């Protein structure tokens, strides 16, 4: 029987250490919503989302109440829209984004992801239409998220897509000037995108997924930080063990919530994403975990090693706690969403170059990084290319969610509000990458892609 101390430990994690379920994300396939008439296709999309996700928010709230653990977000991911809208005559997919926005608002979720295209080896006509629709789609909708996969370890990197995405990000910045370029906070450029990611802004439902599925993302940087406070000065074996045990407990919550949600909604359980996802709240920071390991400031020498240990131990602890693990699974390092990262960037300890190194050993990539408004499209493309190269060579997912802030200079601050936090404008390298990006074509797949 559960004893008092175990009960109090759980309550303490929830009350004081920000333990929560970050998201229940329902994946909905829209492949059966394709139609040669775009109006009909959009109606099918609206109806299917509203039908499948009708009870998602209510069920999430009931589970939250019964288990007494906060479930912060309820979200929807859908099939990449380029695959659905491509059957239609439409020459712009902005109306599809608006339909997603309306449907998501009708069912009451926080975000809907999947205004996406997969172009790692080349574009279809529909992919081009979708990518060209992104700036307007993000500036005229509220909760639609977009992502584009520009490379993978099997296909190499589509450098035409990389070039195009730099331009799309600049265009999105122009269209969302009034909100400091907020549109780009809803846009992710991936290499090795995964099909079952529950986290935004990069969530979409891949074509190998079922018609409807529940994926859950856990969180808990505060819990890990607190656990490490008790082993100050101990060696790295102890640090790793402590993180593993904590990650196990955190992930068990995710597994439980995923199973409950799946059962109550009558939808199959997909995966639990073992992630340490920070929030701007004090005490809910991945950077503070790294500092707890003995670094004066996140970003100093040793940060990459500390993050490698953290990321690996989280996976080892979490994988045993869940029957199916997937998504991105690892520590997230979104700058604007993490109080410790914000502080480190502001004092100059953390640079984009160091963040790039950190992305070699952790989940995902350059995330929620604000750069000066005068950063050129080709420089942004080059940042994307670097990140994609890391993903391609290391067989891991990498992503870029970069936000050029219109009119802002290094050192200024951009407020996004809510979970997206506060972004200090970080310096980029001012030497040009223009001729490199202008080449276009594909970077061939690496030699280790030939495994057959």
């Amino acid at each position, binding site marked *: 029987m559960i004893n*008092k101390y*175990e*009960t*109090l430990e759980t309550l303490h994690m929830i009350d004081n250490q920000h333990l929560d379920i970050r998201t229940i994300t329902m994946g909905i396939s829209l492949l059966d919503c394709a139609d040669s008439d775009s109006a009909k296709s959009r109606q099918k999309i609206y109806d299917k989302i509203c039908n499948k996700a009708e009870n998602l928010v209510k069920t999430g709230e*009931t589970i939250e109440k*019964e288990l*007494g653990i906060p479930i912060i977000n309820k979200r929807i991911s859908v099939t990449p829209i380029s695959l659905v809208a491509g059957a239609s005559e439409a020459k712009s997919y902005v109306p599809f984004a608006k339909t997603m926005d309306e449907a998501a608002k009708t069912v009451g979720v926080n975000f809907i992801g999947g205004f996406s295209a997969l172009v790692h080896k080349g574009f279809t006509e529909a992919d081009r239409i979708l990518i060209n629709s992104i700036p307007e789609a993000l500036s005229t909708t509220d909760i639609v998220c977009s992502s584009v996969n520009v490379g993978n370890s099997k296909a190499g990197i589509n450098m035409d897509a990389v070039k195009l995405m730099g331009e799309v990000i600049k265009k999105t910045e122009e269209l969302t000037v009034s909100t400091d370029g907020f549109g780009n906070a809803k846009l992710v450029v991936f290499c090795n995108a995964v099909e079952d990611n529950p986290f935004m802004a990069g969530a979409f439902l891949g074509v190998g997924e079922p018609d409807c599925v529940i994926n859950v993302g856990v969180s808990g940087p505060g819990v890990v930080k607190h656990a490490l406070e008790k082993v100050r000065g101990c060696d790295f074996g102890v640090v790793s063990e402590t993180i593993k045990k904590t990650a196990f*407990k955190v992930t068990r*919550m995710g597994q439980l919530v995923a199973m*409950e949600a799946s059962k109550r909604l009558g939808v199959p359980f997909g995966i639990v994403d073992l992630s340490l996802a920070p929030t701007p709240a004090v005490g809910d920071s991945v950077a503070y975990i790294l500092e707890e390991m003995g670094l004066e400031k996140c970003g100093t020498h040793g940060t990459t090693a500390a993050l490698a240990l953290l990321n690996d131990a989280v996976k080892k602890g979490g994988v045993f706690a869940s029957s199916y693990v997937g998504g991105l699974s690892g520590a997230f390092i979104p700058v604007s969403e993490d109080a410790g990262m914000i502080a480190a960037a502001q004092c100059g300890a953390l640079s984009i170059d160091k963040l790039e190194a950190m992305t070699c050993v952790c989940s995902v990539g350059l995330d929620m990084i604000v750069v000066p408004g005068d950063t050129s499209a080709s420089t942004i493309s080059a940042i994307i290319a670097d990140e994609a190269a890391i993903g391609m060579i290391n067989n891991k997912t990498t992503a870029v969610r970069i936000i050029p802030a219109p009119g802002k200079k290094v050192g200024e601050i951009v407020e996004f509000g809510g979970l997206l936090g506060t972004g200090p404008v970080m310096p980029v390298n001012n030497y040009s990458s223009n001729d490199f990006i202008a080449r276009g074509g594909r970077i061939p797949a690496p030699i280790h892609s030939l495994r057959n």
Partner: protein
Amino acid sequence: MKKAIITVIGKDKVGIIYGVTKILSENNVNVLDISQTILQGMFTMMMIVDIEKCDSNFEALSDILAKEGQEMGVEIRIQLESIFESMHRI
């Protein structure tokens, strides 16, 4: 049997157990186990209850208990046992 765990944390005073068990009795909730202690100066009580035959739904019971807690100046929570089981038992 459907087990839930009720926790009461706050400043000790006369009548806390009475206040909680009165509500449980009115809602046909059976108490299986009670333990209480003073931890770091705070009254801490844990109760394992069976809510299978509970007359009101879980959310309503949770709200009634939380309200009673506010009146007594303590925090009362009810959670399904599964959250603790899954975290602390393999």
